[in-house]
């Protein structure tokens, strides 16, 4: 990991649009080889309400989960793990940019893909596909601040 990438792993806590622009600009100037660190995900730290809208098997129901995305947290753990359609599912093939997470799911014999994408520092939307069919629609919105281990 480059020195800058390591530093950027902390900048995420200030990750509003201004900070994101700064980060992108600075990374280009300092190191073209700097790749996204897990903590570069440009979601604003705080309390997020994640709504999972189930589409599978003809049943439509919403499930709400509240998650703290705090300073230093891994977005895979905070966001992606929340969206597993079943607890037995395994995540693989992870791909990340500063504004999106995409991964593959393996739930026993069932295979799938998932993706969430930030349209602002305080909101994202996404979808989980299983066996080629929509399984979940996902909506994430930041509602408040959240304390973290560094406080």
């Amino acid at each position, binding site marked *: 990991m480059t020195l800058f990438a*390591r*530093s950027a792993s*902390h900048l995420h806590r*200030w990750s509003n649009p201004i900070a994101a622009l*700064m980060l992108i600009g600075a990374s280009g100037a300092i190191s073209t080889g700097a790749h996204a660190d897990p903590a570069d995900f440009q979601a*604003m730290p705080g309390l997020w309400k994640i709504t999972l809208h189930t589409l599978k098997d003809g049943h439509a129901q919403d499930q709400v989960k509240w998650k703290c995305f705090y300073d230093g947290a891994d977005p895979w753990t905070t966001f992606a793990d929340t969206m597993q359609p079943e607890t037995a599912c395994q995540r693989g093939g992870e791909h990340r940019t500063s504004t999106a997470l995409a991964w593959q799911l393996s739930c026993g014999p069932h295979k799938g893909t998932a993706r969430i994408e930030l349209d602002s520092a305080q909101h994202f939307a996404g979808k989980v596909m299983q066996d080629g069919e929509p399984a979940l629609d996902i909506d994430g919105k930041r509602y408040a601040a*959240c304390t973290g281990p*560094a406080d």
Partner: protein
Amino acid sequence: MPSQFGRTRLKPFVLGVLVTSLVGLANAQTTNAPNDAQFRKNVPATAAKPVRGEPGGAVTLYNPNAGEDASNRTRTPIKHVILLIGENRTFDHVFATYTPPHGQTVENLLSEGIVNADGTPGPKVAKAQQWQASQTGDFQLAPPRTSPYSNLPSINTGGAPTQPYLASAAQAAAIEPGLPSSAYVELAEGGTGLPNDVVDTRFPTTLPNAPVDMHASISYNDYANSPVHRFFQMWQQLDCDVSHATWKNPSGCRADLFPWVEVTLGAGNNGKPQPANFNDQSTHEGSTAMTFLNMAKGDASYFKELAEKYALSDNFHQSVMGGTGANHIMLGFGDLVYYADANGEPATPPSNQIENPNSQPGTNNWWVQDGYGGGSYVNCADEGQPGVAAVRKYLKSLPYHAFKHGDCKKGAYYLVNNYNPGYLGDGTPAPLGADQFTIPPTNQQNLALLLARHHVSWKYYGEGWDGGKEDGEAGTFCNICDPFLYSTQVMTNPALRARNQDLNNLYSDIQNGTLPAVSIAKPDALLDGHPASSKLQLFEGYAQKIVEMVKANPKLWDNTAIMITFDEGGGYYDSGYVQPIDFFGDGTRIPLIVVSKYSTGGRVVHTYGDHVSFDKFVEANWDLDETISHRSRDNLPNPIALPNNPYVPVNPPAIGDLMDMFDFHRHWDDDANVASAKN
């Protein structure tokens, strides 16, 4: 032997009371007594009418606009007080080598001979010697010491940033409104240049057993690591045992286990087993707690300037052992809040959220359950609960009764570390559950409700509040710092909730002459001075901008006091006396500077105080004649102390009301209404 202990520990107090009775209850204040005797005669020692049936009683709706505004009815010329709260610095960490103006004395590392002005170990460095210890099994407040460190464990980088958080002064200024123009560059400087969680090679890797001068190794402008600052850890670091009591230190707290607690447990384990190959660097702290800034070498120059010109306390304390959330709650409530049901009655939290500081089998001080994502509640009335018996046994061994016998309501699980408050900024109750680490809303009484009842105006200015969205300044608002976010009565009342505002509201209120009587102002995480995520000089800049803004409004400067302090010591070592008050604290000393026209001269005030002293000041200044609740610490008396031992109250537990940080003698009028009419 109990009887022997009893005689030894009682001796200082018996002697103290005897001498006091002979000399006539001398007061510890450094203020020239004849100058303010008239004033003092008219200020109540403490407000005396607690609210009946609280906490946990029926919710009362408050209408702050009803009735005559009493904000201007004060017993002194002070019509506005602004409390600025930084983060995580002990008195010795900041004022270690401060030399006060001629005629004043201060108790710090330099005056105690622990360090020299150049930061090297002083002739009495052994006073700060740090030890290793052994805790297996149940939690011990003073675990058996094994041997002193020959060298302190090396300092770790922890979470200190490799590079500064922001890239340039211009970019910092685009995000952050809270600094003087010349200070923005500080946000773009000071990275460690090192990875996280490794030995910090900027410091010597071989450290003598002594406080560590940061100035000798890094710039004041550099980021550095943050030591542990949690409830049971701090109790253990202070190593309190009355068998070690002395006349100057009757609590017997030796403050000699700071690095040992850092390297054996650090900031908690959330119930996880101890990692394989565990060593002194595994908690990513090392001896960070022993570092200090060197004011004699130029560090903290603005606070030095303020101390030399205005009034400094060298006996002011964090009110709760541990960290941010609990200390802000104590400031706002005069008490800690507990896990409550919808009726406000004590309830039992999820089991994974209950503290258990007993050691896991086969470990030395690696606890069963403690951490941000683990235990943070304590049912302190029940000695069968983990960790409780050790603290209560110590409190009972003191030669005085702890406040309310520990101030633990039966069946109540008190929050002693950082969990999210019960309300979001928009007034919505926060989600609860075993994985939320959020305390339910409370209807316990607090300072805001007291002020509302008495028609005294107040605001809490939290930087980043953004109208309750808590997303300003890139989401750096501190939710656990706003004590009123925990309160049902405040957060469900739109008028009271609206008194939570942002930093820019403070600026406009200062400039427009609309400042309320009582203001509490909190910087965001960038500027609060918290090590690793901020730097002390950034909090100096935050304070400087506000002080200069008040001074620029002559009418406001005539009748405003600005109090600058910290939420807690951040886990840094401090050599000062700690007075145990109840189960929750006090903890280590923290700085307090009072800036006003009535606090000039560079006086150093030695009267014992803690955060709740601020509440007592408000109650005395606005003549409220009522305390927050019958359990709140503002019921404690003002300290009485001996002239030759001014730091130790002989009427413990006692905390001051900060009135002796002022000298009103040239302005004081016997008639409070006349003082009011001067505005």
